[in-house]
């Protein structure tokens, strides 16, 4: 009974995800597509839960269901034209889609079989062996901030580049004050802000020994910042004084670089922490990375350079 029900659950989840992905790409109306994609993100988190990847599920919950949805919805408000598809060629496209679907299904099964047939030793044993020396108990955190800390460094660099790219394109794309005012909005912001700080700190703290850590905590904090900002709160730094922004945005990258190069002063190689201090190093880097990811995500969601004074800006 149990195995049957679990298989049914998985099958239904897979079918739903496929249907939603199809809808996100081909549904009539952009709004329907975006909503389908948001539900897709929601159910992807359930899929991560089923695949026993709680770390990924946490990040997906904060980013896939939170930040990405907010980004897409904001963009939708700024797009001047709806996507119009000529009804004439829709039938031809439908036929082409059926052909492509058959092709894709064939290719998909082939790819899945090949992937399945690959030898799968994995790196699990190596990580487990290195874990006692890494300074934390959670293998994912150990990989992210010690064993493959270089990836994390580059990743924060990519986020910083993304922020620079969006800010370089001009001023903020969506206005700061909400269009529809409601007395509930400021209350919501005030009520939720301490909760966000608390839960982010909790997720960060748990990262040392259980699923959690800098990435989900940073993503949650960033998404929380966006929510509180959309609810009408104004950040204390504006666009007129870019120096604080510069420091805040580069905080994570600078901290990682200092840790990477600093150990070189004692004759070690790049990112090779002293074993007895590894836990401390990881904790410091985690805090820096989480704060930096939060600020970077918030900056990304502004959709451009912040205005000189909050609330007075006009849209581009």
């Amino acid at each position, binding site marked *: 009974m149990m195995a049957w029900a679990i298989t049914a659950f998985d099958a239904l989840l897979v079918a739903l995800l496929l249907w939603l992905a199809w809808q996100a790409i081909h549904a009539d109306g952009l709004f329907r597509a975006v909503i389908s994609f948001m539900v897709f993100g929601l159910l992807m988190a359930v899929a991560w839960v089923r695949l026993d990847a709680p770390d990924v599920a946490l990040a997906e919950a904060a980013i896939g269901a939170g930040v990405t949805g907010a980004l897409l919805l904001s963009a939708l408000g700024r797009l001047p034209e709806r996507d119009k598809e000529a009804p004439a060629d829709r039938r031809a496209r439908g036929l082409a889609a059926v052909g492509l679907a058959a092709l894709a299904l064939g290719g998909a099964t082939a790819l899945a079989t090949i992937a399945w047939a690959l030898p799968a030793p994995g790196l699990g044993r190596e990580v487990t062996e290195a874990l006692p020396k890494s300074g934390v108990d959670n293998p994912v955190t150990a990989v992210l901030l010690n064993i493959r800390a270089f990836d994390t460094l580059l990743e924060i660099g990519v986020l910083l580049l993304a922020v620079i790219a969006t800010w370089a394109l001009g001023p903020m794309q969506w206005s700061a004050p909400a269009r529809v005012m*409601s007395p*509930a909005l400021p209350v919501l912001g005030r*009520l939720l802000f301490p909760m966000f700080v608390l839960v982010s700190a909790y997720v960060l703290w748990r990262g040392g020994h259980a699923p959690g850590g800098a990435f989900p905590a940073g993503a949650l904090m960033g998404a929380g910042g966006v929510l509180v900002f959309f609810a009408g709160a104004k950040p204390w730094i504006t666009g007129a004084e870019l120096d604080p922004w510069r420091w805040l945005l580069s905080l994570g990258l600078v901290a990682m670089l200092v840790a990477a190069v600093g150990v070189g002063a004692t004759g070690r190689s790049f990112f090779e922490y002293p074993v007895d201090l590894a836990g401390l190093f990881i904790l410091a880097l985690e805090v820096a990375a989480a704060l930096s990811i939060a600020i970077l995500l918030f900056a990304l969601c502004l959709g451009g350079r912040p205005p000189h004074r909050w609330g007075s800006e006009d849209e581009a």
Partner: protein
Amino acid sequence: MTALAWVGASLVALGVPFFLLGTLGLLRFPDVFTRLHALAKADNVGLGLVCFGLGLHSGSLAHALKLALIWLLMVIASAVGAGLVARAAIARGVKPWGV
């Protein structure tokens, strides 16, 4: 302990009809304003029963408090969300059904 677990499990089961009724309302009610009830009321009662039931089932106070927090947050979110959507709908000129 086992009795508590059973009570918890049956509370969880009791929550399911509320989710089903909420979806029924979502599908069958005639306009946005009535459909808001499905979001703001039925589903949250269902979630409340599920959280309460799972809290009893786990038998640990810390776990139960976390579940209560989750429920509280969802209630706040849907209460504010429902109010906002209704306001925005009125501002956009969506007429309530039967008016």
